[in-house]
């Protein structure tokens, strides 16, 4: 292609893509207006005044905290100083949904929803899965695709793509895992029916077991030393230490921490045996039942109906001719052949059937659940009585709005970022609470309810006072090498891929040989002291250990332990107040000369400038006349200490702790 032609071609591409982009932007704004229209219509019907729009600083703070999970830096706030026009406010939204902080804030959401922990039951190393999900968020992978890959990937999560760790998170608790999965993606609570018919919902225990058949299969991957390897080790105690196989077993256990984090190819058998304590008449302990979906898209694994043929053969057809009987038999045989074919096609493919079911258009819960979750995230209140729980839409509080946004979610092909951006572009997002008398059922529509910041929003906002750019703080890194007792056993991915293909015997030989090499100095030592395994230092909350340790700020302020879906809490405690008054917040921010806020103050000369800078950084606004006067008085009385006192007071104020 000639150079000039290439230029024209590129220009055409650019124009066409930017035209497409502009069309998309206009269309999305139109959608935002339609959502506003639905809300206004509802308010009008209930004779409620449409709420006014938030002031500039309230809008800015709300937009930052909602989209990227932290308050703006002083510099960011100053670059959006004029927010008086709808266009200028839209520019903030456009900026934030392309900001790196969005990925961080969404990662926290996904870690809460999907219960992503660095270590899971049985001490398995599980961060390969967390990193896969975080990667999917960075790529803005459509949510249905994320769900499908998590639900259908097999093999070792460290050797493959990480998604296959999803079903390996709860060793020996596969039923719990299934209940949590159904709730996370479909908003349906089935955990009661794991053990008994659920009298408060419509699920029978059989429903649960039929569903579990889709994902049934051997538990987590596992490789063990063969008996002969152990015996051999026991016979050589001088080589394998005084405890016989102790060291060998230790090495085996270490490898299994990684090797067990994944699921075998057999997973998803499509059938399951009823448990020993089956208490109902529709089955007996040990009966095999086949997979069947309890709601939404119909999908099942059906065994060929052999009985039908047996019944036909044993019946008396005296009135029919031989040919007629033959014909009828042929029809049944064909039917069974067809069933056999179908059975063969789906047998062992339970995970795919399950994944298809979850994200199917015929399973409406999927779109409704994720759209309601995104709504709550952006708009600050839930469309349902219970966050994340699917309800019959027609009977829900705001059926028209829910219906609309669920359709929009599908229209956007489950692009969560685009969806959230559209919601944040509504006027309703900018609304302030109306003070008129509104019934509780419509209260939320008449202005956003006040809510305490989440633990993560608080932590990430405090970082703004510590560092100039919180996004530049260190990030999590996926572990790549197997470090065991000071030895570098090699790259995790390759080693796990190798182990995955081994038989038990080959694995035993491998461990024995590896142990020999370690003893004989053939395995390299870890060169540098590895980076700290935990991430407790100053980083964005999404880059820290999951779950956080119990002595951390995030724990005190209610971060989820990530063992259940939506496990976080915003309840208050005395410890929270003490932490702000006297704890690390004082050490790392208020009294830290190197904290960004204090460095900035050092560059300012007049007390007023300093006071304004503190207010702008902590509360994203300028002080009122009265506040300024009180703070200047403080400076007159306590000199330089005043700035510490003002900063500390602002950080422990309701205005900082709550989102308007």
């Amino acid at each position, binding site marked *: 292609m000639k150079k000039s032609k290439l230029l024209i071609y590129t220009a055409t591409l650019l124009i066409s893509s930017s035209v497409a982009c502009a069309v998309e932007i206009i269309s999305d704004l139109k959608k935002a207006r339609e959502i506003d229209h639905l809300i206004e219509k509802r308010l009008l019907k209930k004779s409620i005044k449409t709420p006014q729009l938030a002031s500039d600083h309230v809008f800015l703070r709300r937009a930052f905290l909602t989209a990227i999970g932290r308050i703006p830096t002083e510099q960011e706030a100053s670059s959006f100083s004029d927010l008086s026009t709808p266009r200028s406010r839209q520019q903030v939204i456009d900026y934030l949904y392309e900001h790196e902080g969005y990925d961080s804030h969404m990662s926290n959401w996904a870690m809460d929803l999907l219960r992503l922990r660095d270590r899971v039951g049985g001490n398995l190393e599980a961060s390969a899965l967390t990193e896969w999900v975080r990667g999917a968020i960075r790529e803005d992978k459509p949510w249905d695709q994320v769900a499908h890959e998590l639900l259908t990937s097999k093999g070792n999560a460290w050797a493959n793509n990480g998604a296959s760790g999803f079903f390996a998170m709860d*060793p*020996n608790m596969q039923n719990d895992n299934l209940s949590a999965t159904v709730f996370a993606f479909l908003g349906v609570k089935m955990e009661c029916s*794991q*053990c008994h*018919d*659920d*009298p408060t*919902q*419509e*699920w*029978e225990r059989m429903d649960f077991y039929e569903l579990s058949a889709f994902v049934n299969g051997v538990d987590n991957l596992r490789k063990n030393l063969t008996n002969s390897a152990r015996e051999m080790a026991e016979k050589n105690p001088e080589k394998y230490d005084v405890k016989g196989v102790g060291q060998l077993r230790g090495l085996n256990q270490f490898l299994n921490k990684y090797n067990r984090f994944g699921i075998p190819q057999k997973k998803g058998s499509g059938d399951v045996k009823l448990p020993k304590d089956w208490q*109902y008449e529709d089955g007996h302990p040990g009966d095999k039942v086949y997979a069947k979906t*309890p*709601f*939404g898209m119909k999908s099942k694994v059906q065994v060929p109906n052999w009985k039908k043929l047996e019944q036909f053969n044993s019946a008396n057809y005296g009135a029919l001719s031989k040919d007629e009987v033959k014909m009828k038999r042929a029809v049944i045989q064909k039917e069974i052949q067809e069933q056999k074919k179908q059975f063969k096609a789906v047998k062992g493919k339970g995970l795919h059937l399950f994944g298809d079911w979850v994200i199917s258009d015929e399973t409406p819960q999927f779109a409704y659940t994720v759209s309601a979750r995104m709504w709550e995230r952006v708009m600050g209140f839930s469309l349902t*009585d*219970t*966050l994340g*729980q699917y309800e019959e839409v027609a009977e829900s509080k705001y059926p028209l709005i829910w219906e609309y946004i669920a359709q929009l979610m599908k229209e956007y092909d489950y692009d969560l970022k685009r969806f959230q951006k559209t919601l944040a572009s509504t006027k309703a997002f900018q609304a302030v609470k109306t003070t008129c008398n509104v019934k509780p059922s419509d209260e939320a529509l008449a202005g956003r309810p*006040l*809510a*305490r910041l989440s633990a993560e929003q608080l932590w990430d906002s405090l970082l703004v006072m510590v560092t100039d750019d919180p996004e530049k703080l260190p990030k999590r890194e996926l572990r790549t090498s197997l470090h065991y007792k000071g030895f570098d056993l090699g790259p995790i991915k390759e080693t796990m891929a190798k182990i995955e293909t081994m038989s038990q015997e080959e694995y035993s030989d491998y461990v024995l040989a590896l142990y020999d090499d370690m003893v004989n100095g053939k395995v390299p030592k870890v060169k540098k002291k590895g980076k700290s395994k935990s991430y407790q230092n100053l980083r964005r909350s999404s880059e820290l250990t999951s779950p956080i340790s*119990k*002595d951390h700020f995030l*724990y*005190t302020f*209610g971060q989820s*332990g990530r*063992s*259940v879906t939506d*496990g976080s*809490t915003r*309840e*208050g*405690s*005395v*410890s929270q*107040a*003490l932490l702000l*008054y*006297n*704890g690390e917040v*004082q*050490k790392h921010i208020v*009294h830290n000369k190197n904290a960004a806020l204090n460095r900035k103050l050092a560059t300012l000369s007049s007390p007023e400038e300093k006071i304004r800078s503190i207010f702008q950084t902590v*509360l994203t606004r300028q002080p009122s006349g*009265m*506040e300024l006067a*009180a*703070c200047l008085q*403080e400076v007159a009385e306590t000199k330089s200490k005043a700035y*510490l*006192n*003002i900063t500390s*007071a602002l950080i*422990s*104020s*309701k*205005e900082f702790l*709550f989102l308007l």
Partner: protein
Amino acid sequence: MRYNSQDEITRRQFLLQNAHAYLGVSLLPMLGGTIASEAVAAGTERNRKPAKSVIFLNMAGGMSHLDTFDLKLDNKEVSGPIEGIKTSIDGYFVSQYLPHTAKVMDRFSVINSMNSKIGAHEQGQYLVHKSYVPRGTIVHPSIGSWVSRLSPRMNKTLPPYIAMNSNAKNTGGGWMGASHSAALIGDPQEGFEDVKRPKSVSEDDFQRRLKLADMINAKFHRENPSKEADSYYSVFEEATKVMKSEDLEAFDLEKEPEQLRDAYGRSKFGQGCLLARRLVEADVRFVEVTLGGWDTHYDNFVSVEEQCLKLDQTLATLITDLEQRGLLDSTMVVLATEFGRTPNIQKHNRDGRGHHPEAFTYLVAGGGVKRGFVYGSSDEQGKKAADKPVTIFDFNSTIAYALGLDHAEVLHSPSKRPFRMAGPDKEGGTPITEIFA
């Protein structure tokens, strides 16, 4: 909910109809007293001083009843390698891993007929703490919050409800608000973390900070009145009270003799129990200490032995110490867990045991309960609560009873829903009065 089965009348429909009918009926008794509350009224009239405080030892993860306090020594298939040792209760044996506790068993009432329907940790722990199963529509207050709300405060500056190594969600005040949530202590040796001003902050500075914050808050409140924000912020006022408390030295374990600190054990749980004793001495109503790690799916017998090592000497020391100080009558010590473990030993999990809510054990001492008393029993395999089954609703009602509170008293949430310390009316939680002397 859409359902793709075209079955005719199914059990689900039958159940649903019954549930609706049941829920409708069950609302009525909540409006007034119940038979249970009458029983309590009668019980509290007797000559017994109510207990003042509770030390709630939370064995998180599901403590195996079969390998600790409810041994099935005649059934090797169930007991596995566990051996029994004699205790100070005639003819009663506990696991060989509990030699110290064995010596003080005569101070306890043992309830071997605990049972529940919840076999999952989170929900089970929630139930143990709150007498309700988690619902999506409300967050329930914990038992400590109920005690904090229903009992007059004895110490005016220390929080009435303190929890160590516990989960914030299970020890929260729920709809009662943050003022009835537990004050959480991470490491008992560190005491009440952050309770002291940093050295660089003078009292004058601290007061100035509070005053400035008040100014900002007043403006915020004027512009955005919110009961939820006020309720949340009440913990800040509580915190300033705690900071000034003269009883803060209750948190200073250095005041205890080294020998006693060693006897409690230097673990977080050990020192937590010592701190619990100091706190009830300082008139704190409800103290929880959690010992996790009881989820013995793998290597059950090795794991239980390790767990017992952490529990045994501490528990025995706590009981003896309380007794020697004359605190055992006024303090109810409870050893609780969310469920037991399966009688069958799972070979495929290296001799593990699974979750088993149908039968498990609680211990209770002090606060007026009988000494050396065994209440109820599980069946021969430890599979089901056989004689005098006790639910978690019953047990939490028993805590209320011990403290002279009405377990069936109905309080309404801000959303006007009725709740009781005994849990839902339909569960019929009733105090086990038989265990009281």
